[in-house]
């Protein structure tokens, strides 16, 4: 097969994935067709149904980016509290890191 | 603000001296120490001398900026053009197509070993020296001019 990528221990063929995507698209289209049949524009159908509550303003409905993955960062807070402050934004610290890596590599070279 | 009358007059007198000395360094780059870069730096320092002696807004009128831009680009174009000319003649980039040719800058017989030196030698080296000299002259003068323009008191 021309499209097959052989990786030595296995292979990969995008055609399989394309076929899968095509199948999914067809299924989705069918489901969408079913809903489209009973749809009338401008009616109460268009309004989102939020357990009977009134629809909030658009600004409120929009979820800000920093609130996403709040749980993730909170769970890894031990890690983040160390790594984030390391990005001090001071240019001298940048140079310090570069030189430390160089020094560490030098010590490694001396040892080996 | 400008400096005192004595300094200004000395700058007036020194400027032609510095310029001609820089040009001398440029022209003799292939036989004595020096060359395009050093000579260009000397000439640019001459311009810096004038800049320091006079007030900045006077200097802006005295040293035309467009000329400096032209020098900067023109020098580099001459430089790369001298390289490309070798290519057009069928040789690789930066082939010294004037050396030992008998034409300009190509005195055919050069005494080997220590000799007093002759201006009319070197192939395209003097050409390159002149090109780099022009470029460095314009470039360093522009650097000084621009940096001095940034020290004013007005809010950015």
């Amino acid at each position, binding site marked *: 097969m021309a499209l097959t990528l052989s990786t030595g221990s296995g292979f990969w063929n995008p055609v399989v994935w394309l076929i899968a995507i095509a199948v999914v698209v067809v299924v989705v289209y069918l489901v969408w067709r079913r809903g489209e049949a009973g749809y009338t524009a401008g009616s109460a159908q268009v309004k989102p149904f939020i357990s009977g509550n009134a629809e909030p303003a658009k600004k409120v409905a929009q979820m800000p980016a920093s609130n996403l993955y709040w749980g993730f960062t909170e769970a890894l807070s031990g890690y983040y509290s160390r790594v984030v402050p390391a990005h001090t934004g001071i240019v001298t610290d940048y140079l310090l890191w570069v030189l430390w890596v160089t020094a560490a590599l030098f010590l490694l070279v001396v040892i080996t | 603000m400008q*400096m*005192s009358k*004595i*300094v200004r007059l*000395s700058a007036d007198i*020194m400027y032609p*001296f510095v310029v001609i000395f820089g040009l001398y360094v440029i022209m003799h780059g292939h036989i004595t120490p020096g060359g395009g870069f050093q000579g260009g730096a000397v000439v640019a320092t001459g311009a810096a001398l004038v800049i320091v002696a006079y007030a900045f807004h006077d200097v802006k009128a005295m040293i035309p900026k467009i000329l400096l831009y032209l020098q900067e680009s023109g020098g580099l174009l001459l430089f790369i053009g001298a390289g490309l000319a070798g290519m057009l003649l069928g040789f690789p980039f930066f082939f010294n197509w004037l050396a030992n040719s008998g034409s300009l800058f190509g005195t055919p017989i050069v005494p080997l070993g220590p000799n*007093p030196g002759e201006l009319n030698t070197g192939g395209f080296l003097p050409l390159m020296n002149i090109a780099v000299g022009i470029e460095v002259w314009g470039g360093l003068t522009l650097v000084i001019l621009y940096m001095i323009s940034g020290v004013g008191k007005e809010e950015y």
Partner: protein
Amino acid sequence: MIVEALILLCLVIGVAFNALGVLGLLRFPDLYTRMHATTKATTFGSIFTSAAVVVYGAWIFLATGDSQFLTLLIHALIAIVALAFTNAVSSHALARAAHKSGILPHPAVVDRLAEVKP
């Protein structure tokens, strides 16, 4: 022989005046007096050390007629002239700047400039 003695003399005078200049630079009490030492003495000393080179070049040039020593002579002369010229002007500029920035001559009997420009 006599030329060599002349060169030696020039060198000795030059180094001596340079040494005096530096000594003055270290010993004098305030800026302006130090400037006297550096401007006059070191310029004068350097002129003499370079004059040794000039004498040397002239000597060999006259002896051999080789034009490279003419170049040596002339370039050393140009160095002398440039040195004297620039030293004079730059010390004036420094003195003026120092006075403008408020450094007054410390042990001074009179200061007419401060009277004119408060």
